[in-house]
């Protein structure tokens, strides 16, 4: 509803400190979703412009993989994708009406699991960058 005056931060994202688990899950799910859509288009754009010859493709990929930023972004991409998948599973259960009392716990679990998987992936993704 429209306000007759500005009531300050109670109306918007400024309330983030008061967000509960379910709200954070929603915010993160939206955010990761858009990041994945963005990545998808970048992915298609980069690869389709590197298709003139096998050599061009290899050089493009090698150049990209040689950049530290790209390596770090890959870790970020994994984090985003894993969270989106796990929270998607959580939402599937919510839609099925299973375990709605522990929806906050399943959100924290998906966060923890995302963290663990991302940390475990760091050696693989960053192998050779600092060497």
């Amino acid at each position, binding site marked *: 509803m429209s306000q*007759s*005056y500005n009531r300050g931060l*109670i109306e918007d994202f400024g309330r983030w400190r008061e967000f509960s688990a*379910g709200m954070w899950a929603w915010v993160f799910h939206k955010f990761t979703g858009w990041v994945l859509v963005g990545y998808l288009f970048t992915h298609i754009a980069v690869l389709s412009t590197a298709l003139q010859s096998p050599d061009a493709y290899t050089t493009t990929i090698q150049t990209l993989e040689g950049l530290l930023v790209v390596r770090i972004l890959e870790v970020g991409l994994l984090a985003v994708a894993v969270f989106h998948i796990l929270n998607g599973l959580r939402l599937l259960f919510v839609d099925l*009406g299973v375990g709605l009392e522990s929806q906050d716990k399943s959100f924290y679990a998906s966060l923890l699991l995302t963290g663990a998987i991302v940390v475990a992936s760091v050696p693989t993704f960053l192998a050779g960058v600092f060497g």
Partner: protein
Amino acid sequence: MSTQLPEQVEEESSAAEAEPTSAAQERRLEKKRQRAEEKERQRQAEEAEKALDEEDTYHLKVFRYDPEIAGKKEPRFDDFHVPYHKGMTVLDALMYARDTYDSSLTFRHSCRQAICGSDAMFVNGSQRLCCKTQLSDLEEPVRIEPLPHAEVVKDLVVDMEHFYDQMEAVEPYFQTNELPEGELEEQHQTRENREKVKMSTRCIWCGACMSSCNIAAGDNQYLGPAALNKAYRFTMDEREGEDMKQQRLEILEQEHGVWRCQTQFSCTEVCPKDIPLTEHIQELKREAVKNNLKFW
């Protein structure tokens, strides 16, 4: 003074043995009661004084706004320091502030026992029923604001008209085409069916859920958690019959019905009657899908 009291009582009790008539006894008891009452009053007064002295008060920051008075058109926060007593609720504190400091402080309240649903407010960043919220559970200063996502009429009073419109939109009353045989026959519900709708019947129309809902804030046509919960209560009631259920689902399936819910669980979080609102909305979604999906 108080150290002398026990002696007096003893004197009197020995006098009572000498004077056996019940009239005298009653007189004495009456006196005793009066003394006790006076003492209690004194104690309370002292306690209130002590509380004020020792700063055993709660600091309230209350939203103030009055569009009808030029000087109060600009929203502001007023500070009140209310003497605390054990078991004091936010509503008690507001009433104390109004009765003692500023009689123009405006807010809705009625039953004071979480049944009428008049005093849902935004307390310390969350929609709460003031009469059900203990001050001791809150951090100071206690910030009291009118419900977000609603037009403020004055101070803590918001316009509930839109909320009521949404509630009425789902036809929140029992209707059926299947009446029992005899004219005076009662229409019974099975125990299982009653259990199913039990939680949804607890709604007191306070509007806390609607105010907490992010989607309802952005989409004025969205029915909102309270209305959907009401709809759940009747859609799931077996006595209403199949055709009535169909009619109800048609209302719920619309664009601004159940499908707007994005399971943020905000409504479930704030509901003062602990109604599992999201669960009910999700179940209605499944009903709607089952209603439209046919594999044959």
